[in-house]
């Protein structure tokens, strides 16, 4: 990552932080919950986008089925909270472990292929999973599951009530920040560099002593955990889950937000997800057919700005510096 990219990423990080603070203040003053909940949802899907970016931007694997792990996390979370014990920590822990296992198992199917085939297999995996859930009565079939209770988070010095919009937003923001910085940390380790090696020149890596399946598998499992944990927050926010969470449109939207924000920048995914949520709600008030607008926007970005917003920022910074 050159210094302009580094700067651009830093700027975006601050933008997100400042935006969050403004939102919190706004919420406290006006007592509004709508925008806070919207922002929380944006961050939750931002987590899904992070998992897509990890695979696509860092390792070079386009996954069109990350919604599988997202939906899995959501369903598991709903089951735990509603039918077992409404404990936040237990839920997150179990979802993380289960997602890791699921990611590990599916990696043996998905990682057999590369490039386009990998994309299509990941697509197929998610479709099959979604259809299977759709067909399962016990999981509510096409209606999904409702009635997920509002959760409290017990901490040593206080108890957070996730029913409060501001609290939930802050919790989500902190959680996503942790995930973001954890992923960012990995990027700067030798493992991160090997991932980069897989992305830029996979065939050479064995001659440096590293077989490529292991680093790919690690990334794949990490991505599953990130998507799963993000998904686990969904029923906590909305109170229900449905098979739609695993449909291709969810995976596809995640990819769109990653490209919008900037592939490989990680922060771009969070920003892109927030931006898309804002756009959807603005456009949604103007017309029912926001998909058309989003689709057009996406095409424009892919053709004219494939490096996304962070990329544009980076270019502008470079121009300013070399003037």
């Amino acid at each position, binding site marked *: 990552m050159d210094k302009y990219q580094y700067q651009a990423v830093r700027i975006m990080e601050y933008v997100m932080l400042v935006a969050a603070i403004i939102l919190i203040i706004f919420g406290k003053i006006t007592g509004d919950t709508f925008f806070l909940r919207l922002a929380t949802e944006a961050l939750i899907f931002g987590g899904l986008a992070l998992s897509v970016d990890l695979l696509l931007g860092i390792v070079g694997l386009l996954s069109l089925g990350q919604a599988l792990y997202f939906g899995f996390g959501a369903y598991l979370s709903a089951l735990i909270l509603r039918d077992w014990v409404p404990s936040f920590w237990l839920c997150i822990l179990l979802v993380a472990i289960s997602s890791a296992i699921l990611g590990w198992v599916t990696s043996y*199917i998905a990682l057999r*292929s590369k490039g386009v085939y990998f*994309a299509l297999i990941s697509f197929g*995996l998610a479709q099959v999973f979604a259809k299977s859930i759709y067909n399962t009565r016990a999981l509510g079939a096409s209606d999904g599951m409702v009635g997920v209770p509002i959760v409290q988070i017990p901490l040593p010095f206080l108890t957070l009530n996730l029913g409060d919009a501001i609290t939930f937003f802050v919790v989500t923001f902190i959680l996503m920040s942790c995930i973001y910085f954890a992923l960012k940390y990995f990027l700067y380790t030798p493992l991160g560099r090997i991932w980069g090696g897989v992305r830029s020149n996979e065939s050479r890596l064995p001659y440096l002593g590293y077989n490529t399946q292991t680093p790919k598998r690690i990334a794949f499992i990490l991505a599953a955990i990130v998507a799963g944990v993000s998904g686990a927050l969904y029923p906590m926010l909305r109170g229900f889950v449905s098979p739609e969470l695993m449909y291709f*449109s969810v995976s596809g939207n995640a990819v769109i937000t990653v490209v919008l924000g900037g592939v490989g920048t990680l922060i771009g995914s969070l920003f892109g997800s927030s931006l898309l949520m804002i756009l959807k709600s603005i456009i949604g008030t103007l017309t029912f057919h926001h998909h058309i607008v989003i689709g057009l926007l996406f*095409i424009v970005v892919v053709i004219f700005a*494939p490096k996304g917003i962070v990329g544009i920022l980076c270019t502008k910074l470079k121009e300013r510096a070399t003037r």
Partner: protein
Amino acid sequence: MLESLQYIYAPQIINGLSIGVAVILMALGLTIIFGLLDVINMSHGEFYAAGAFLGVSLMGLGISFWWTLIIVPLLLVPFGYLMQELLIKKVFHHKDRHILTLLLTFGVATILEDLYKVIWGANTAKPATPITGASEVLGVMFPNYRLFLMMFGALLIFAVWLLIYKTSIGSIVRAATLDRNMSASLGIPVNRVYALTFAFGVALAALSGVLLAPIYSVFPTMGKDFILMAFAVVIVGGLGSIKGAVIAGLLLTQLQSLSSLFISPVWSDPIVFAVMVLVLMFKPSGLYAGMKNG
């Protein structure tokens, strides 16, 4: 034994075959676009849907099924052409071409699906079966339309193969896609060839849509539902192989229709997918590979 063959299996096999040819036609378009143009067309299913919707509308206007079969693909040709010229060409020379075209066509698919909702509404339509009645074949009654599908489809597939491998148009297309610069210097209008090839591919999908509309009904999300099957056929057959698409198409549709005898049809998609994954585990590039050699 012979009776169960006649009354239970044969109908399913014929059903599978009649659907199979339509699926193959659609997969052919997809595999041609990938094999010749190196583009992953995620919007292919939406062109299939477009064919179905346009077919319903035209027939609703009173135009006969036969004319519709001819008109609909032709209607889609300019769209395909423009899509290639205006959109796909722009990202073609990027080193991440595969991903970018995939994303680009995905964007188009998103737009198209919503567009269909706008134009035709969200309800399901089902055009009347163009050829009614049934005929007896080998002692079993089969719906005429299905028999027609089988024969017409097989003919079309053969025609496509002939076109690509046995005609001079076909060799021009193959030359242009194999070596762009060389072909251009020989006077071949490479851009036009690419655009027409893409248009041809999506026209095949649209034709498929018209053919299958009386069987599967028509609704805005039909493109998404069908695309997994199309991709499964193309992947199992080998991206870019016509022979592969035919064989894989027959295999998977037979699998689908025969398996519905034993398990609930809602599980047919997972089965098809499982087969796809299994094939890929042992033959990562599909059964046959490459269009350059047929």
